């Protein structure tokens, strides 16, 4: 489970912030989000490589989640452009972003607690005419599609080892199982890119392993993955490329093996004066 499968794609990519990629699926330029006097996100340029696992890391308050929210339409940027497959996604609603093929999960898992696991899954499907009010009144219009959706949902539930839980309420699942459910649900629409916001937060170590495997498997299936994560162990294990943010900016990019050696990254995580001996100042 090493991260070499698609590292060829990054062979000639320079290890600098905003590095151009060979086949970018997302291109963001000049994205800025200001909350009052605080500039939460100020990304000059970012390209995300297709069919790869890209990690977005950075210390607390670096603007990772805000940047995520901007890309997926859950927040409005003050300025900047970004495109998905060359099509601009600016000021699109979250629903339109998702329909375009970019589906996200949340840091605080949003399992629909008082719905059954199966209904959670089925909600993720697209192309169901019965979601229209008038069509909903005429079951023959949507019943066959419903069966296809059930089939697909069962397949995914088996893969994510939730099949036995399909008739339980989602609220009865453990925290880790909810993360799995959320990920499986996101896959119901066959997204081109999955955006995972801290997929490991609150997951017990026993489930971590299977979650990692699922993410790597997604890449093998041709899905692009962009994830925000704090757990450096996980980042090192599965990501092909790491983007480091600090104070709203992208300060470094590179493969997981070397990016942590970058002085800018060490400064961001540990402070610029972490190796200065302060004892002399005390005298």
């Amino acid at each position, binding site marked *: 489970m090493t991260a070499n499968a698609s590292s060829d794609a990054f062979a000639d990519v320079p290890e600098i912030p905003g590095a151009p990629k060979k086949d970018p699926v997302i291109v963001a330029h000049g994205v800025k989000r200001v909350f009052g006097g605080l500039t939460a996100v100020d990304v000059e340029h970012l390209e995300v490589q297709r069919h790869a696992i890209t990690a977005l890391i950075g210390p607390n308050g670096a603007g990772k989640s805000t940047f995520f929210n901007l890309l*997926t339409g*859950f927040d409005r940027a003050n300025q900047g452009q970004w495109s998905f497959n060359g099509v601009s996604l600016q000021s699109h*609603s*979250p*629903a*339109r972003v*998702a*329909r375009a093929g970019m*589906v*996200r*999960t*949340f840091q605080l898992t*949003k*399992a*629909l*607690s*008082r*719905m059954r696991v199966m*209904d959670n899954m*089925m*909600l*993720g499907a*697209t192309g*169901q005419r*019965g*979601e*229209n*009010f008038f*069509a*909903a*009144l005429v*079951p023959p219009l*949507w019943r066959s599609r*419903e069966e296809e959706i059930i089939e697909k949902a069962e397949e995914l539930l088996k893969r994510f080892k939730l099949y036995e839980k399909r008739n339980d*309420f989602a*609220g*009865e699942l453990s925290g880790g199982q909810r993360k799995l459910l*959320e990920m499986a*649900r*996101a896959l*119901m*629409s066959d997204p081109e890119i999955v955006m995972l916001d801290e997929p490991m937060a609150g997951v017990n170590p026993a489930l971590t392993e299977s979650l990692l495997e699922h993410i790597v498997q997604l890449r093998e299936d041709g899905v692009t993955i962009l994830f925000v994560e704090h757990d450096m162990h996980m980042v090192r294990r599965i990501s092909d490329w790491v983007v480091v943010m600090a104070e709203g900016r992208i300060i470094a990019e590179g493969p997981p093996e070397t990016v942590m050696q970058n002085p800018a990254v060490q400064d961001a995580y540990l402070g610029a004066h972490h190796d200065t001996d302060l004892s002399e100042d005390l005298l």
Partner: protein
Amino acid sequence: MDFSDLLIDAGREMFAPTTAAFALAAIGLNFHFGMTGLLNMGHAGFMLLGMYGYAITIREIDANDGMFLGIEMAAGAQIALGVLVAILVAIAFGLLLGWPTLKLRGDYLAIVTIAAAEMVRFVGRSQSLKSLTGASTGIRGKDYKRPFESLSPFPDRQIELGPFTLHGSQSTSWWLVLVAWSAVFLAALLFWRLARSPWGRVLKGIREDEDAVRSLGKNVYAYKMQALVLGGVIGALGGVLWSFGNSVAPDSMGRPTTFWIWTLLLLGGAATVFGPILGSILFWTSLLVVRALANGLIPDTVLHPTELEPFSLVLVGVTLMLLVIFRPQGILGDRRELAINDR
């Protein structure tokens, strides 16, 4: 006090048209709250608008010698037009309420709806609109009930059925009982169908977590609007049915009415098909029994007859509180479903 009379009264209350009208209104609210999680605190406003829409239409056609746009209208056509107007008014009201509030958090809808319903009532009872709404006295039954009563297939006299005696076709009649419960049946059928459709699934998802549903590519705003309008229309039709057994009076559709509907919905079980119906039957029957018992058993020196009405309403309030605390899923709700409370 005579217990057999009380029993018959209670039995009559169980299938009374008002019980049906409230069941219908509660089915509307069930679309809002049970299915979508919308906190509509102004359901009585939808009911009152429906009543006005229907009654004024019929009255104006009547004043025009049964002509509408130069066409002679039969009783059935008049009713259809009246109901259509009631529906359109409810749709307009729903759109107007939802447009600014559905993008905001749920609590805002509650604030806006309670205020809007009161505005409808106050505008309706304002003296300057006396020629249209009849101000605080409202619209008398004989001004708008005629087309409906003329369609009755039952004879024009008191009809005895078992221990119950009702008029065949006038006011609170067997005819109205039949129509009102048919409407309730159809609305319950609609709820059942939609709750089990992909459309209903999206609404339940919105009830649980809007953002999750957004992230799955659904237009949450449009769905919430559809639910608000649909529930409002059903509420308006409940209002029309209610007015057939009473008269159009703005003050009978104030805040208490909204809270009664909430109480009986939660009593029966929100998000269930039969919850609103069972809730309405139990609510009105037990209210009648409590009033009668209090009247018969509590001496005047303890509780004066004029205090009986407020006393029974206090009991309604206490019931609602106990319900929400001890059995939030109502009588028919799934205990497991409501036990999960980790949002």
